């Protein structure tokens, strides 16, 4: 029987990992990911799981040891946030290039300068080119569900790529919500035994990981990695379908909310989608035809989804909780580039909000929609919600 628990997003993820009982966990504490590690450490200390936990001395070593463990054949997990993710940046790329099925939970928090511990998406955005699959949760339930699904995607023989489960720092990590967790047995059967390949511990098939490529092979290796991403949509949908059967919750590459006859559609990642959905219901009651597209899978970025849904709409407004200095905001840039090829291009507007944990309110969201209703959208202009001018 699924159990409804009032828990934080961090506890939900730790709970999922408890049920999965991975072989190795290596993590370094950083606000606001710390509770994930703390809850899991308690499970280990109490013998609730028999995972081997490595109390590493930095995030760089957390990712390095998880790479070593996964290469040895162990199902491995780590978690981090913000500057911790930035510190492991070098190894994040290496993990994907070695095609290791690692799962990492990231409690999205602003990157430093100045140091800020609150929610924004700059940390994961800085890793968008890393080759990791990126899933984005809107709430603690989705954070739990993606954690349960992650190894099935990562370890699939057609994929073999690491998966990053993004969940908003403090908002999801520390906010208490009602989460429906599945039975231990159900999760165990769904996730199944690890699919181990090219194990270092298999001394009868010695393998060399991480060779030196000169200019004669690097390009081909990267092309091969590019190809792997192309299998993710099919595998994700397969896993999501199976997951729907055991949970009743259906996931897809994007979450479409009231898009059917929407004239104006907002695109946003993460927990803000919850506030947007609430705002959309209010606007709909006023007769406005509005909807939301929320990417569940941000990497790979499947252009065809956005082309299919956003074609011929009157206006598309993209909200970004991260900026790219000197260029367009990351989600906006991706959506806009996808819409280059649609038959009827909608008007587009870019809104950066919520940096460093700045709150985003329904009124501010309505403000963005108002711009769209008035036809006051300038595709090349970046606007800001909630900023003091």
């Amino acid at each position: 029987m699924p159990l409804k628990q009032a828990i934080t997003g961090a506890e939900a993820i730790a709970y999922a990992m408890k049920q999965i009982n991975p072989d190795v966990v290596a993590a370094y504490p950083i606000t606001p990911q710390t509770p994930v590690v703390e809850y899991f450490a308690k499970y280990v200390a109490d013998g609730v799981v028999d995972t081997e936990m490595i109390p590493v001395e930095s995030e760089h070593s957390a990712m390095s040891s998880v790479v070593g463990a996964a290469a040895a054949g162990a199902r491995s997990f780590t978690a981090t946030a913000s500057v911790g993710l930035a510190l492991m940046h070098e190894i994040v790329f290496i993990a994907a290039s070695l095609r290791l099925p690692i799962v990492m939970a990231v409690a999205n928090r602003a990157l430093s300068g100045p140091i800020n511990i609150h929610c924004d998406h700059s940390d994961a955005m800085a890793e968008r080119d890393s080759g990791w699959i990126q899933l984005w949760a809107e709430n603690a339930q989705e954070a739990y569900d993606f954690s349960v699904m992650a190894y099935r995607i990562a370890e699939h023989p057609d994929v073999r790529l690491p998966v990053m489960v993004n969940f908003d720092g403090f908002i999801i990590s520390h906010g208490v919500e009602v989460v429906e967790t599945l039975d231990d047995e159900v999760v165990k059967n769904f996730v199944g035994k690890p699919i181990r390949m090219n194990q270092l511990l298999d001394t009868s098939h010695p393998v060399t990981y991480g060779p030196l490529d000169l200019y004669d092979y690097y390009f081909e290796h990267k092309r091969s990695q590019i190809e792997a991403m192309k299998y993710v949509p099919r595998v994700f949908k397969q896993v999501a379908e199976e997951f729907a059967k055991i949970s009743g919750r259906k996931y897809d590459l994007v979450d479409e909310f009231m898009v059917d006859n929407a004239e104006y559609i907002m695109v946003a990642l993460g927990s803000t989608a919850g506030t947007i959905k609430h705002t959309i219901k209010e606007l709909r009651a006023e007769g406005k035809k509005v909807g939301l597209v929320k990417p569940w899978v941000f990497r790979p970025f499947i252009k065809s989804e956005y082309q299919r849904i956003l074609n011929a709409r009157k206006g598309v407004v993209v909200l970004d909780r991260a900026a790219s200095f000197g260029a367009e905001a990351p989600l906006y840039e991706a959506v806009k580039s996808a819409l280059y090829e649609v038959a009827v291009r909608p008007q587009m507007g870019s809104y950066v909000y919520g940096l460093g944990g700045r709150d985003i309110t329904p009124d501010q969201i309505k403000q963005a929609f108002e711009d769209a209703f008035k036809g006051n959208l300038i595709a090349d202009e970046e606007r800001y919600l909630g900023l003091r001018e």
Partner: protein
Amino acid sequence: MPLNAIELAKLFHDKNPGMTQGHRMCPGCAAPNVVRFALMTAIAKGYEPIVGSATGCLEVSTTIYPYTAWNVPFIHNAFENVAATISGVETAYRALLKRGELDKDKKYAFFAFGGDGGTYDIGLQSLSGAVERGHKFIYIVYDNEGYMNTGNQRSGATPTGSDTTTAPVGKRLPGKVQLKKNLVDIMAFHENVYVATVSIADPMDFMKKIEKALEFDGPSFIAAYSPCVRFWRVADNQAVDISKLAIETLYWPLYEVERGVYRVTKKVSNSKPIVEYIKAQGRFKPMLSRPDAEEIINELQEYVNRRYERLLALEEATKDKPIR
């Protein structure tokens, strides 16, 4: 007891000890011998080695795609994290063993090789963390006293007066001004560890220490003197001669520290003057023509003398008194 050359030849005459021929290290490089001595000992004792290497001469020359000179499992991750990577491999071993996925009679030996660059400098954090956590692995630093793979840049392990590209001997500065970092004692002070200096000039001592490391219930750190014939500017065939001279001039004392107990494993009476060691290598030649050359040589002589006496004193003071 370690096997001598005859016994080793009997065992390995027809098989590669983890590393094969066809690697691209310079002719006369000491690093392949450091690796071979370590792996031959492990394999002879019935262990199956799993090797990690930091970026550097060894890693780059043995794994140029599509060739690998390793016939044991090998992983290269990045420059500064071989200790963290092997921590992960060793932990995976314990996890999978516990879950019945591995043959419990199989003895694995986890080796992490790093150059002095990837160990003394950028790799110090991950090495210290791995040793503090107590993983059962053997870290071997092949100390060639500089970033040699990239053309002789100065590292924390470079000796004073040595000419390197980033601390060259010039009109104003005499090459590297700092003395060599004493990483061996830094690692010894992690306490729950077996630490030793080794040299290819004394193979029996080398292999005995590897045997000890294999049996030690915890992490081991082995500092192997590894002459770079290229950038120390000596002839290709000099690796063993320079290694011998380093021991005889007290430059590279052979000692071990086991949980805080010091033992000088090779006592040197009638040591040779350090100036002999310095004059034998071309990397010190630019410094020798400077007016302060004598001062630099004297400082080094003082240091090696004092260090040797200190080691003997530590041996006395810590005899039978392990700290852990």
